[in-house]
């Protein structure tokens, strides 16, 4: 299954995990303790974040730490890309609308 950043941050628990480690890496267990859900569920979320490149698990001695990689948020924050998407879709709609409008007018003209 393809994972992307948008998918990763669509889930509130995953966003919360990212928030916690955004500016300082934390021990995996202390992150998990913060949540009411099971550890297994939290590890699953961490795994998804890691697969998207937003989180890295690092072994330090006997403990595992989570470290955030916010560079990946580029995909979200690149306004030019977003702007292009908005306008591209908007111009698709515009073309379709103009098509309808002109077809209607032709019918009018003939009748």
């Amino acid at each position: 299954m393809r994972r992307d950043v948008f998918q990763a941050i669509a889930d509130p628990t995953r966003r919360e995990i990212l928030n916690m480690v955004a500016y300082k890496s934390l021990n995996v267990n202390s992150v998990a303790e913060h949540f009411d859900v099971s550890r297994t569920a939290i590890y699953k979320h961490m795994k998804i974040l890691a697969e998207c490149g937003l989180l890295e698990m690092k072994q330090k001695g006997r403990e595992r730490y989570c470290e955030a990689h916010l560079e990946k948020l580029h995909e979200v924050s690149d306004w030019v890309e977003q702007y292009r998407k908005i306008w591209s879709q908007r111009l698709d709609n515009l073309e379709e609308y103009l098509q309808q409008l002109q077809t209607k007018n032709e019918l009018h003209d003939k009748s």
Partner: protein
Amino acid sequence: MTKVNELMKENSGKQFEITRVINAPRELVFKVLTQAEHLVHWWGPKGFPMDVAKIDLRPGGMFHYCMKSPDGFEMWGRFVYEDIIAPERIVFVSSFSDAEGNITRAPMSEIWPLEVHNTMTLTEHEGKTTLTLRGGPINATAEERQLFEDSFANMQQGFGGTFDQLDTYLTTL
């Protein structure tokens, strides 16, 4: 410098350009781009009803609109027209806004420029219209930069709020 600030700096200088050849005469394209009765039919993504609160097509005038997501989230935007040469050119500054028409931050990204300067040109050839839109952020003033920096300070305390709104926004794309 924080990572977020670096991202901002990188993005702030970016320019945008899109071109489309439309199978309609220029006069009609211009009309459909500037009249409320037409805009409501195509402006927003499908399934997002659009309302034109105001469209005042003259230099200094404002186009102020709202799009509503199926779950009721309202997203407001505005253009302030700078220059209009019908039917060939529209220059405008676009921003996200509130219901009163004040400029606001983008609902999905703190890094989106507050104001984007856009030049739309329409040229006609054999009954078809080429639409070109060029845009780029307006250079931030000292106050805006301060606002950027303040909002980044807030971001460092948590990305949560931004992401919540991002979810909603992404459904509109």
